[in-house]
């Protein structure tokens, strides 16, 4: 039987490699596991992966290539919101389902016929933090976001949701993705005496910020985004990270979860597998790709044999317990997750602990 061909577009190199690399690794791992277990309904799954280097132009070219030369049934990725937005018209025009691994809410809102996503919406992470702040009666919040796609989209959500939780944003600062010192922003923030500081970024910026905050003697509670929810962050920030809280998928605390958690099986399988294949810690970015491949697998198992059928079958996904959460796609929701996709965790003694 001919193989089922799917494509992957990941930012394996370039500034977003921290996303793209685990995603590609995971996708390749899952596909080979599936094939080892006999494929899907007797057919092998074939994955064609291209590196977009985080560049929207390249992503568009490669999406074209996947559709036109490789004739894939579905595309997983790209890794970042920007690239995803660039690729969407290509997928729509080419009538091939796209399962983006990026978090931007714009990707699936408004709804696009051929576009799905597995990364939790930023808004869910924001809500997780804000609910906590509300409970703790912390109202005056300072934002420090990175000026790239990830930070920009987080910043938008942080500002948009604030009012609903009675939160006042007293500072709205940014820093560059390659900046090496953020004491200026923090000094300014310190002068404003906020109740909490929320930083939205991906490594290494947040680690630098954590260290800078300690240097400046800032005692204000510090919140990070899910962008740094991996051991790496703790390693980089060292002792300064102690007490920092952030919303995260369940991957990093998989072993702390109660056995009753419906995601636990998937999580353990993913973490163990990644450890075995790559001798490294699987993170929730890889999880996006894991979910995407498994969602496609579900669609194929339900009998899809054409891109259009894959798309239709994706919409029939119900309660798939993946890494990012439990997915239910419908014809009106292509993001598929509820706010319980995130838990709030805290750094305690150099490790993650769930905040109850």
């Amino acid at each position, binding site marked *: 039987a001919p193989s089922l061909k799917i494509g992957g577009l990941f930012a394996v190199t370039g500034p977003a490699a921290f996303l793209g690399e685990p995603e590609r690794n995971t996708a390749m791992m899952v596909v080979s596991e599936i094939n080892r277990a006999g494929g899907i309904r007797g057919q092998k799954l074939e994955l064609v992966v291209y590196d977009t280097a985080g560049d929207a132009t390249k992503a568009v070219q490669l999406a074209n290539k996947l559709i036109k030369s490789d004739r894939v049934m579905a595309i997983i990725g790209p890794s970042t919101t920007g690239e995803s937005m660039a690729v969407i018209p290509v997928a729509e025009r080419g009538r091939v389902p796209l399962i983006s691994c990026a978090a931007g809410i714009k990707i699936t809102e408004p709804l696009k016929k051929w576009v799905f996503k597995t990364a939790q919406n930023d808004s869910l992470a924001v809500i997780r933090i804000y609910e906590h702040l509300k409970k703790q009666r912390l109202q005056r919040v300072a934002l420090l976001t990175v000026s790239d796609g990830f930070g920009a989209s987080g910043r938008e959500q942080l500002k948009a949701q604030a009012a609903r939780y009675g939160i006042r944003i007293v500072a709205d*600062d940014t820093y560059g993705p390659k900046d*090496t*010192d953020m004491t*200026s*922003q923090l000094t300014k923030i310190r002068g404003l005496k906020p109740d909490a500081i929320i930083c939205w970024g991906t490594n*290494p910026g947040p680690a630098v910020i954590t260290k800078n905050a300690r240097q400046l003697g800032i005692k204000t509670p510090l919140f990070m985004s899910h962008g740094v929810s991996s051991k790496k962050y703790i390693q980089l920030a060292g002792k300064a990270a102690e007490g920092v809280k952030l919303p995260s998928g369940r991957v990093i605390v998989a072993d702390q979860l109660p056995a009753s958690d419906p995601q636990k099986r998937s999580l353990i399988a993913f973490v163990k597998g990644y450890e075995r294949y790559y001798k490294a810690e699987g993170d929730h970015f890889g999880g996006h790709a894991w979910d995407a491949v498994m969602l496609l697998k579900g669609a194929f198992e339900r009998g899809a044999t054409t891109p259009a059928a894959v798309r239709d079958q994706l919409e029939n996904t119900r309660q798939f317990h993946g890494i990012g959460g439990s997915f239910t796609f419908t014809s009106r929701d292509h993001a598929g997750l509820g706010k319980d996709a995130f838990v709030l965790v805290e750094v305690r003694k150099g490790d993650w602990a769930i905040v109850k």
Partner: protein
Amino acid sequence: MRNGTSMQFDQILQYTLSGLSTGAIYALIGIGFSIIYNSTGIINFAQGEFVMLGGMLTLFFINLLQLPLWAAIPCAVFCATLAGLLFERLAIRPLRRPTPLNLVIITIGGSILIRGISMLLWGKDTHSLASFSGDDPIALGGATLLPQHLWILGITLVIIIANKFFFYHTISGKAMRACSYNSRAAGLVGIDVRRMVLFSFVISSAMGAVAGIIVAPLTMTSYDVGVMLGLKGFCAAIIGGMSSGMATVVGGVLLGVLESLGAGLVSSGYKDAIAFIILLLILLIRPQGLFGKAEAERV
């Protein structure tokens, strides 16, 4: 409760101090640029990669060979210097038509190559390096510094003084400068131009590596840190009029302080733009660099 103005003052002090220490880093990297420029006329776009190599190699020696920091540093500097030497021998020297632009492309290619190899060898992760002497902040007025900042400032100072002395007061230093201005005439007074070029790559890659090592505890390091640091160092060097002395330091510090003040007082998003606008203005008013003497072109 302190009053508002002293708050303001503390803040500005902190901005300035932060800017100073970032600026010192830029300066150190900038001097690496100027050294090569001053002895060969080449703008070495690969300079940032030697900065990266410094940090990454130190980590490599610490993590893989389990060396202590004090032993890893010289090893790292040695290896980075060796890389600089090889780069000159294999890429710069064989050039048949060494026009400035061809050299720029060579160094761009070299930087891509070095970065690529490092990525394959050490992966894409960011790593941190322990500070040389702890992380306990030192209070200075209302502002704070880290011990590492003092290391940076101190080492930068030593290097500048050494440079100034070498390039302006020793015959070898003057010979190196002569090479860039007129390599044919340099040969005619008996200077081995090729050796001087090699030598300039050796010292600047060593200096880049040192810069990379002393900043790594603050900035973290990864295979691609060289790009941004290199760019900033390049700017510092040009503001300083491509001198290998004090002017480049002032250039770097100015850039650092402007960024820092811009981020603190005006807008953190536009801080780089603010810095660049001011630099552009400086450039337009004093095209010879801050301290450069007007280089009269005569006919």
